[in-house]
């Protein structure tokens, strides 16, 4: 049982675990502008993101590889966020001085609108405060929502909740 990673016991992956798997871009890249992060640590037979990326920045050798994003090519457009069947890809933008921006998939009603103050949630569903929605678009009923968050929460906010 000891070879079972912790995220399989909790359903929550830590930033350290993501870093160990090589899934987090280096600080310098994060500081430059929006970039995609695939929180996809298991070898699922799936390569939807590879086909989805318009910049051909996501690589896999076999369908069972975990996605490797070329952060030099990635511009953080968020198309992979809208298409990943596991809703496991996020775009993080830490290039602005006071705020960070997290782009995440959202599939609940009501649909958030630009300007809405929404609840920010962590990977464990913890309430991390409020954040403003700055962009919303949709693909096949997955809404891709960009929220403004405090800079220290850029790697923590992974969902939002919109109150009715």
């Amino acid at each position, binding site marked *: 049982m000891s070879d079972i990673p912790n995220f399989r016991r909790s359903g929550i992956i830590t930033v350290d675990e993501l870093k160990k798997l090589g899934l987090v871009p280096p600080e310098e890249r994060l500081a430059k502008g929006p970039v995609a992060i695939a929180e996809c640590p298991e070898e699922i037979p799936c390569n939807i993101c590879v086909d989805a990326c318009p910049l051909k920045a996501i690589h896999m050798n076999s*369908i069972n590889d975990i996605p490797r994003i070329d952060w030099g090519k990635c511009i953080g457009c968020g198309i992979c966020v809208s298409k990943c*069947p596991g809703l*496991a890809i996020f775009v993080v933008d830490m290039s602005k001085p006071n705020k960070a921006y997290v782009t995440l998939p959202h599939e609940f009603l009501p649909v958030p609108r630009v300007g809405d103050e929404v609840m920010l949630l962590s990977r464990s569903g913890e309430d991390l405060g409020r954040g403003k929605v700055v962009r919303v678009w949709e693909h096949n009923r997955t809404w891709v929502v960009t929220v403004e968050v405090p800079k220290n929460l850029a790697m923590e906010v992974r969902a939002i909740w919109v109150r009715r």
Partner: protein
Amino acid sequence: MLSKPISDRRIWEHPILTFKRGRKVKFYFNGIEVEAYEGESIAAALYALGINVFSRSIKLGRPRGAFCMIGKCSSCFMKVNGIPNVRTCIEPVKDGLRVEVQDGLAEIPSDRELFATEDEEIIDDVDVLIIGGGPAGLAAAITVAKYGLNTVLVNEHFKLGGQLVKQTHKFFGSKELFGGLRGFQVAEELSRKLVSFSNVKILLQTVAYGIFRYGWVGLANKNKLYRVKPRYIVIATGASERYLAFPGNDLPGVMGAGGAQTLMNEYGILPGEKALVVGSGNVGVIVSYQLLQAGVKVEAILEILPHIGGWFVHAAKVRRYGIPILTSHTLKAVWGHDRVEGATIVKVDEKFKPIPGSERDVECDSVLLAIGLTPDTRLFAQAGAIMKWVPELGGLVPIRTPYLETSIEKVYVAGDSSGIEEATTAIIEGEIAGLDIVVRELNNVEARERRDKLYEFLWNEYRQSPLLQRSRMGKLKVTVSYEEMIKLRKKFPSPISLSS
């Protein structure tokens, strides 16, 4: 018992689905006129009205409600127009139907007119008979129809698509294999393709009740019997949800997680308001996420193992919204009067023994079981195919060649009835079985290449995922070489031959 509808459990707003409800239909429940929408099953329509009890058990008169919602479990048996034991979950509502709660053991009606059917129709010019209209059956049917073979597809439900129709999440896989599409969209695409062929006859609400000497297959629906003599058969009958033993497990509100999914995603009806999900495999976590999308509060997901059964990304989706996954936990009991009102959960030790004193009560109106599926292989067993018990595949499944032919020559298996995997492999298996028939029948080169390529992809790429090793090992255990199959057939001759 009921003077007017207690409630309307229908969902009117949903982030993913648009429920296209038909015109209003009026029927009678225990003599009282009630309303439903065309396209709903009787059980779904009654459930929407707030009715939980569909029948009373034979000996103790205990209440019985819906469980599987797909015509497999017999928990929703009711009397319809005087006929008892009607599976109301797969019987569509119609104006004027008289539906009654079935109390105890049903009597066979003396009125023979109720059972009158038209003459039996003989269909003997069929190349391929496909039994089951889910992902595997649809893929097989499309494949053989494309090459011009005369095809008949029988489907128990009044809709095609099997369990794809209730899958609202996007499928993994690759673009070529419908990856990225939501399950119900895959069902729409496959069904649309199939109905475009003029050489396919589709029989809905029809059951294949047996395969007999010389390969005659008996089909039956409410009005008619058919006797079909196909040259090949593909059996793709799917699977049914497993039950769990605990006090109160027969209370209405204890439902298969897939049953709840049928209610909310196929019919747009809330299965409850507060749910407790048992099992954290992919079905458990996916259904929990979908419950949340429909507006149901998920109190917790219980998992008896010390780790989550499903794939991490699916688990992460529910954890982000605060749904707890309680590992090393199980159900102790469920209680309520005519409907679940709560459950007692308990921690277990490393030997899965309940730890005394760790019990906790959870208030909920639904307990949804997501503890695995059992292949529906009754037709294979009836026909005398060589079977093997394979726990990794969910139970008893037929031995097959690499291209999915069973020990009964020209009878193929595909999809969950060949051993539990998931929809993508079901589609691939259906196509491989179909292609093999085309190769044998037409000696088509293109079909042979495609078959070999798909086979290679299935075993040497797709199933190589570490997450699929358990089912891959299971499938290896029941796949034998063509030569080995010839030996097995000599040793255990099949009682049925399609060639004669």
